[in-house]
């Protein structure tokens, strides 16, 4: 057990830090959402040119092939430097890895480089209004025609859809097969009239997500990933990639929120209140519990090779802590924090989704119970 960085890891950290110091893009522009997105796209190009964009990707596909520790160091340095997120997050974290894992040589040739360069933005079309936690019950249909597939259905909770060229789409290609067997994983071209993107407004008032209305859209055969009927297995890869390594990065975000909360407690003259002190201490312990658990899991993953289902606990820890922090902020901030123009009211409302998005807390507890504890599944 050794939590200090090795000489190689230190060298890597210094390299990242030095590069960020020189290449940090500064504050995002004031303009509208489009201008901000363009800024993030440009930032990804800068990252890519220096070889940082696909940090976890194998070198043969244009990535850096960094170890999990190096990835964690990179994320920590990005957070420390308050660097913005690259534009094509879903392509980098999910789309690319899925193509690398399940794609043909032609697909790798076609899709990977534009992901890294942010030339083609990716979005994800899994959830549907009728299938939330029960993803495999999805109803979007894919009908085989000559040379490709016609897709019809509705998707929801699609981020970046209005910027995206490609959508990772899960659809039912065989309505007669058992529900997990009849699914196929498609890469849908968003630039066709049969795909309509509508913004979906949330309780924050923002439209961070979209709905996708797909009415007979076309996907050629060469854009099927992993073969017909194998969509479920491919989708699991996507979701595993979504959750892997979440813990360490999430803990960084929580620590920043906790710092703000401590600042708020002081500003409101509540730093001496034992009730506040006790709750902040609990939150600090929760954040460190998450961070250290993520590091343990990272070490274990490097040893074993595959991320374990403990990531589900990290997600539970993160959502509980983030929600508790924003609730405490409302109590400390009082009516000021409830103003629509105060950042805490936004953070409070946004965090309500934390225990739902990316696997509800109920589903995550099922996963922990079944896959970690080995308890029987409820039939």
């Amino acid at each position, binding site marked *: 057990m050794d939590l200090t960085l090795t000489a190689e890891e230190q060298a890597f950290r210094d390299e990242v830090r030095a590069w960020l110091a020189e290449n940090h893009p500064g504050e995002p522009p004031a303009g509208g959402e489009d201008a901000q997105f363009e800024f993030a796209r440009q930032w990804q190009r800068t990252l890519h040119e220096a070889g940082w964009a696909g940090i976890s990707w194998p070198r043969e596909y244009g990535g850096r092939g960094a170890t999990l520790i190096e990835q964690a160091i990179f994320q920590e340095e990005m957070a420390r430097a308050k660097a913005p997120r690259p534009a094509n997050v879903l392509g980098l974290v999910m789309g690319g890895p899925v193509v690398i894992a399940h794609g043909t040589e032609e697909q790798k040739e076609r899709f990977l480089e534009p992901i890294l360069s942010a030339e083609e933005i990716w979005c994800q079309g899994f*959830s549907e*209004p009728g*299938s*939330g*936690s*029960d993803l495999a*019950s999805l109803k979007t249909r894919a009908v085989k025609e000559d040379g490709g597939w016609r897709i019809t259905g509705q998707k*929801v*909770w699609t981020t970046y859809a209005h910027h995206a060229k490609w959508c990772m789409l899960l659809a039912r290609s065989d309505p007669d097969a058992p529900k997990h067997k009849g699914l196929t994983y498609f890469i849908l071209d968003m630039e066709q009239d049969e795909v309509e993107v509508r913004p*979906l*407004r*949330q*309780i924050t*008032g923002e439209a961070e997500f979209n709905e996708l209305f797909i009415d007979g859209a076309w996907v050629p055969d060469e854009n099927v990933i992993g073969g017909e009927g194998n969509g479920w297995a491919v989708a699991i890869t996507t979701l595993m990639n979504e959750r892997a390594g979440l813990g360490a990065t999430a803990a960084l975000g929580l620590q920043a929120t906790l710092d703000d909360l401590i600042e708020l407690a002081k500003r409101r003259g509540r730093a001496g209140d034992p*009730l506040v002190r006790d709750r902040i201490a609990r939150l600090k312990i929760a954040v460190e519990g998450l961070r250290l658990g993520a590091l343990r899991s990272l070490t274990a993953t490097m040893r074993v090779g595959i991320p374990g289902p403990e990531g589900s606990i990290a997600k539970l820890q993160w959502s509980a802590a983030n929600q508790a922090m924003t*609730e405490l902020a*409302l*109590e400390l901030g*009082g*009516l*000021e924090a*409830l*103003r*629509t*123009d105060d950042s805490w*009211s936004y953070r*409070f*409302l946004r965090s*309500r*989704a934390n*225990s*739902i*998005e990316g696997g*509800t*807390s*109920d589903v995550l*507890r*099922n996963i922990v119970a079944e896959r970690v504890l080995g308890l029987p599944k*409820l039939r």
Partner: protein
Amino acid sequence: MEFGFSDEQREIKATAREFLASRFPAEKVRELAESGNPYDDALWGEMCELGWPGIAIPERYGGQGLGVVELVILLEEMGYALAPSPFISNAYAGALIASAGSDEQRERWLPGIAAGTARGAAEFTNEGGPVVGAAKGSTVLALLTDGGPRIVPTADAELERIPVIDDTRAYFRVRAESGDPLPGDVAWARAAGAVALAAESVGLAARALDIATEYAKEREQFGRPIGAYQAVSHRLANMLWAVEEARSLTYYAAWCADADPEALPLAASMAKARASDAACSVTHDAIQTLGGIGFTWEHDIHFFLKRARVSAQLMGTAAEHRERVASLVGL
């Protein structure tokens, strides 16, 4: 002893449920919330015809001469409907003036407040917080902070709307130099006001529970209604527990306000603390039950969550009231 409503009280409750359901269906609440001005004058007029603004004001001032129990009945229903209305502010102003005003002040202001023609408003705030209260369209303000309990005609005050996350009610910061001091003790009215707000929170929590329960019966996942899963059904059972506990405490506090004022301080603090917490936790859990749809603007549940959170900061927070409870039980 009877800890339940009399026939007359049940009649009031049934009328309120029916009236509010027809006048404040979800679409109407949404329309008012999104309009920027949540108060509808025509609907206020209808409430005045029903005599609601004067429900707890003595008959000699044109009120119905009923008590806080009846006021709480109406407010629980208004919370259940999430009706955007200046009703509670008017009622609280009336309670302050009726209980702490001079004869002259009562004569002058209560008839208008009872009739709803000269609408009253009052500060729903705790000392030390921002001075929030009042309602657009009010005629008279009962202010409590920054100069002590006093009456100020709205025309003499400066009102600044403050934008908080609850769009179903209008909140104002009030500034007024002068004012006509209330000679009496406002402790009773403040406690009664806290109970009134608690009742509203109980109502909105009850509605959030109903919404979540209905959804859990209908929404299917993995081949079953989600309400068949204990993760969901036990959460709903806990929500009911919270609602019922808050409700019992609120009814009791209302009865104390009318019949046992010595027991009121403890009863009111217990009710407000429990009701605020219940409304916050139940609306949170309702969203969790609804899943993604509950996080959309198009679903109504967020209006309940937001009202619950703002009300939790008014008339004393749960933590402040618990501190009072601790003192009152001898710690």
